[in-house]
């Protein structure tokens, strides 16, 4: 089911790899893997079910991954967010263990009083159906609403225009300020407010940290017990009290323990989202590089684009390996020589072979063969990748190699054209004939 029915919310654009498209200055704050949005008062409003919930500085985006569609609730329309409400609120630990297939009454609900145009007041509830720390999410939601980042974007545009006329200073878009910038005192005030909000953010962060620390020891012991139970109960899938193995892994990951009970790598939300983001990012550079790019190059480009939150080579490899599970337009490919590349799925080996074949039959190539550099130049790709293509073509029987003190070159494969019963036969047409006339002219 897609989100089409919920037309009372503005729609949100999704990339080809299932990531929400963010506007300039919109920053992601929190992700919940699975949530519903239930209108509580108005039965005519369609609910949203089974969506990835992305909290950004501007919106609450409900992304339905299977259909690559999304709806977004602007934070500006939230009049009041109510704290999370749970049935088992007296025992938070037990609620963590409750089975995921139970009715929504066990799932935490965050009620929101919203005001959607045209001036309609509604109450909706965000129902968190996955195992997640709802309090952290709520805290970030409140913070994002308070920060009103969407107003900064609106204010920065005219303010930037005014400021550039007044002082020639470039506008800043990433600050949560309310007053327009005018003059040097304006800049000073901006600095002041930046420091204050940074200080406030730090304080909030530390508060979260303190809360976590106090529970840390308890959680570690619990996690160890659960891990032990999992190890012994591997085949017992009907054990509802423990929840599914997937949830368990997520829980362990969130407490900082990565305990690979099996060899499966997919599952953690971080890697899934990274994988999708990588697929989005990588499409344009790969196409520009001729449909194929070495994994090392992608690693450099991606990390440079990310700026500060660098990913490790293992993360990159893992992200690529997850692409099998989604429908993304790129894939990881390993050549016989061990070189790994990322190529677009539309990339066709046959097309490359056709181009190589025609290159190898040009008079110069018939006389002297082609080197990886020649192929790179003609195909418009990196020499290392060109060599892979040439080796591939050799494997298919299109080319032959010539190894000499001059180096490593490839010729069009004439062995197929020679009749072993009649080795002196020179045909009247075809590539063998062309080669003979070119070769004898040279000698």
């Amino acid at each position: 089911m897609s989100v089409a029915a919920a037309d009372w919310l503005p729609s949100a654009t999704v990339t080809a790899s299932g990531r929400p498209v963010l506007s300039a200055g919109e920053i992601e704050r929190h992700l919940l893997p699975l949530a519903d949005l239930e209108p509580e008062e108005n039965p005519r409003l369609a609910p949203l079910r089974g969506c990835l919930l992305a909290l950004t500085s501007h919106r609450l985006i409900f992304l339905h991954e299977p259909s690559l569609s999304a709806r977004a609730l602007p934070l500006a329309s939230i009049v009041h967010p109510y704290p999370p409400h749970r049935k088992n609120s007296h025992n938070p630990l037990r609620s963590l263990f409750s089975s995921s297939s139970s009715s929504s009454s066990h799932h935490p609900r965050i009620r929101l009083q919203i005001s959607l145009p045209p001036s309609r007041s509604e109450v909706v509830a965000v129902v968190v159906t996955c195992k997640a720390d709802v309090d952290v999410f709520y805290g970030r939601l409140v913070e994002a609403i308070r920060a009103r980042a969407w107003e900064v974007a609106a204010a920065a545009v005219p303010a930037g225009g005014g400021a550039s006329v007044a002082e020639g200073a470039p506008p800043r878009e990433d600050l949560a300020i309310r007053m327009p910038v005018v003059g040097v005192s304006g800049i000073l005030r901006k600095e002041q407010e930046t420091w204050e909000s940074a200080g406030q953010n730090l304080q909030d962060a530390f508060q979260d940290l303190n809360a976590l620390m106090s529970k840390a020891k308890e959680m570690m012991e619990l996690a160890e017990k659960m891990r032990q139970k999992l190890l012994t109960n591997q085949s017992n899938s009907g054990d509802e009290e423990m929840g599914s193995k997937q949830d368990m892994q997520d829980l362990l990951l969130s407490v900082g323990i990565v305990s690979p009970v099996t060899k499966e790598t997919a599952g953690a939300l971080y890697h899934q989202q990274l994988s999708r983001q990588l697929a989005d990012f990588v499409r344009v550079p790969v196409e520009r590089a001729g449909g194929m790019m070495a994994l090392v190059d992608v690693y450099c480009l991606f990390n440079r684009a990310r700026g500060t939150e660098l990913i490790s080579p293992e993360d990159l490899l893992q992200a690529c390996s997850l692409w099998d599970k989604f429908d993304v337009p790129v894939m990881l490919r390993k050549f016989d020589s061990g070189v790994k590349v990322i190529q677009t799925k539309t990339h066709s080996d046959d097309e490359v072979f056709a181009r190589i074949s025609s290159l190898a039959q040009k008079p110069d190539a018939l006389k002297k063969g082609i080197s990886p550099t020649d192929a790179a130049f003609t195909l418009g790709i990196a020499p290392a990748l060109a060599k892979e293509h040439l080796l591939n073509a050799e494997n298919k029987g299109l080319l032959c190699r010539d190894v000499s003190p001059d180096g490593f070159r490839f010729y069009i494969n004439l062995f197929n054209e020679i009749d072993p019963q009649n080795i002196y036969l020179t045909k009247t047409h075809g590539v063998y004939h062309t080669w003979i006339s070119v070769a004898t002219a040279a000698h």
Partner: protein
Amino acid sequence: MQRQGDFKLPPFFNYPPYFTLQPVRETREKQVQLWKDLILDYCKSHKMYIISLEEDFPLFSNPNIERSLSYEAKEVFLAALVSEGRAEWIDKSHKKCLILWLRIQDWANYILDFVRENGLEVTTIEDIRSGIETHGTELAGIDRGVLMRALKLLEQKGKATIFKGTSADDEGVKFSA
């Protein structure tokens, strides 16, 4: 077309990849086949019986395109001939190879035909190898070892008898057609 003496080299002798041992199996099979035939033809034409891997063999390099076979390649092609029964390693270390551009059996038949056509009854080994009667035939200059094996084969079939000759260093053959 290139020639070495009277021997006509085929066009692909100028194809550089011909001198590089091809890694791809199908291509290699075709390459080996071409080299096997070329070696046999060349040796037959030049009446060469022994190829030594450690010495230069004119067929194994082409100065025109500045290419020659690597040691490994030579070994592969000669080993292929040995597998087919058209050659034999003379030494254990596979450094020298006897090329049977006619198999021993074929030599035996050739000798029989020659003997019948020319009405030869008794002759010596040396006469077969370098006598006037065999001048211009395949037998002229035949490798002594090959000749002896062919004659022994005929002896087994009762078509010939080898005996010690009058001089100490030669042997004679009596044919009974």
